[in-house]
């Protein structure tokens, strides 16, 4: 694996290998000594054009636990803010000897552009409304840990699918791994082209093994996607009553950060069905596995 740009690039075998390695990495995370010498002498640059402390520290922890050197390059207060182009930044990183660049960027496809301009590996940590492949991998890992499998599961991805990189990556990856994915939300926010679609959350709940809630941003109200936050939560928010309509074994996921009260109520977020905290923990293991596969060989 040279780059990790899209969850759609992973075959079922490749994705399963990542999850298997992540399981080994997770075992390391449970030990007193959490560090591995694997990537000694390798340099990983975290190139973040968006504020995302959660994702950045997750990648930073992953790289450090594999003994890589980590350089954090945040766009704020740097040459980027002074107008440096992505291409010039790429050359700078190249000159620093970056073996891998983890990039978070507001423009869809920016990691693809970067991959043309650096020799090292590029890892997409979220690009615009395109993809967030490591989030999908950690979600798949979480589902597999909780449910024992992914193949054959019925997964509902609920919310602002149109603007969600998490939804795109998950739809691709979970389908590759054999799940039946349904995208759920109001028609203005759920495009037809990405997979099976439903506008009726209540009808779907009794037949769902996994419900993945997406963050719905307040600004969607301003461009006529939604009439109001209240109407959205009434139709598509996951509350206690809806939680009880799920099968006994079903789990509730959310990539965070949550809008409590909007797409999910505190009762649901804090219930034992919720995997939200595990998702964060699993993020480090999955990212360790990805970094190993990108940098652990010739």
């Amino acid at each position, binding site marked *: 694996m040279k780059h990790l740009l899209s969850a759609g690039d992973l075959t079922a075998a490749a994705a399963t290998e990542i999850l298997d390695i992540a399981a080994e990495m997770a*075992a390391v995370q449970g030990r007193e*000594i959490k560090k591995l010498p694997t990537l000694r002498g390798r340099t990983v640059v975290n190139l973040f054009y968006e504020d995302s402390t959660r994702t950045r520290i997750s990648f930073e922890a992953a790289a450090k636990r594999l003994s890589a050197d980590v350089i954090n390059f945040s766009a704020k207060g740097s040459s980027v803010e002074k107008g440096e182009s992505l291409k010039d930044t790429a050359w700078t990183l190249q000159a620093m000897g970056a073996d891998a660049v983890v990039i978070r960027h507001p423009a869809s496809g920016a990691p693809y552009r970067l991959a043309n301009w650096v020799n090292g590996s590029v890892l997409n940590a979220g690009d615009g409304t395109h993809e967030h492949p490591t989030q999908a991998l950690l979600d798949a890992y979480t589902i597999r840990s909780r449910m024992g499998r992914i193949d054959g599961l019925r997964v509902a991805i609920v919310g602002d699918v149109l603007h969600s990189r998490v939804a795109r990556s998950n739809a691709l990856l979970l389908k590759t791994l054999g799940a039946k994915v349904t995208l759920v939300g109001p028609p203005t926010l759920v495009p037809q082209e990405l997979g099976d679609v439903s506008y009726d959350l209540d009808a779907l709940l009794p037949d769902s093994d996994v419900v993945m809630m997406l963050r719905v941003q307040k600004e969607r109200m301003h461009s006529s996607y939604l009439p109001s936050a209240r109407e959205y939560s009434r139709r598509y928010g996951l509350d206690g009553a809806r939680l009880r309509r799920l099968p006994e074994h079903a789990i509730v996921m959310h990539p965070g950060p949550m809008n409590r009260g909007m797409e999910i109520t505190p009762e649901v977020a804090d219930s034992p069905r919720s995997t939200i905290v595990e998702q964060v923990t699993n993020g480090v293991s999955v990212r360790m596995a990805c970094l190993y596969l990108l940098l652990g060989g010739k």
Partner: protein
Amino acid sequence: MPYAKTVLTDADVQRVVDRIAHQILEKTQGAQDVVLMGIVSRGVPLARRLAERISAFEGLSLPVGALDITLYRDDLRQQAVRKVGHTEEPPGGVDGRRVILVDDVLFSGRTIRAALDALSDLGRPGVVQLAVLVDRGHRQLPIRADYVGKNIPTALTEKVRVKLAEIDGTDEVQLEAA
């Protein structure tokens, strides 16, 4: 001229494993506090067989673990990315115990170097020993085995191929040259 000759038959392999089991019992005062750690991949079935033999001889049930050393290798950059195997801590852990690392072939010693690092990240054993089915020489590090099934003098160009029933369907050790 390419060749492949059998240096240990299936019966030989079983005899050698029996002998190592006896030696472990002798050298460790009846396998007190012993933990067997098989190195992935063929060290793991060997460790299980040793535990099984020791159990048969003395009625002792020794803890067995598996140690994958991929993430500790010093030659990762020289090849395409390697598969990562499964590490399994033995029941009761390794702290303060007499850990016997088990592998199929001892060659350069680099695998054992990596295994010592991996083991020390799992905990702090009291004693670490090494048991191998075959020692083929050509050490590159100051490492030696405590229990050797068979010493096989080899040329550097030769390959020692160990087959075990659990993985390969049959027990055999061959010496090959391309």
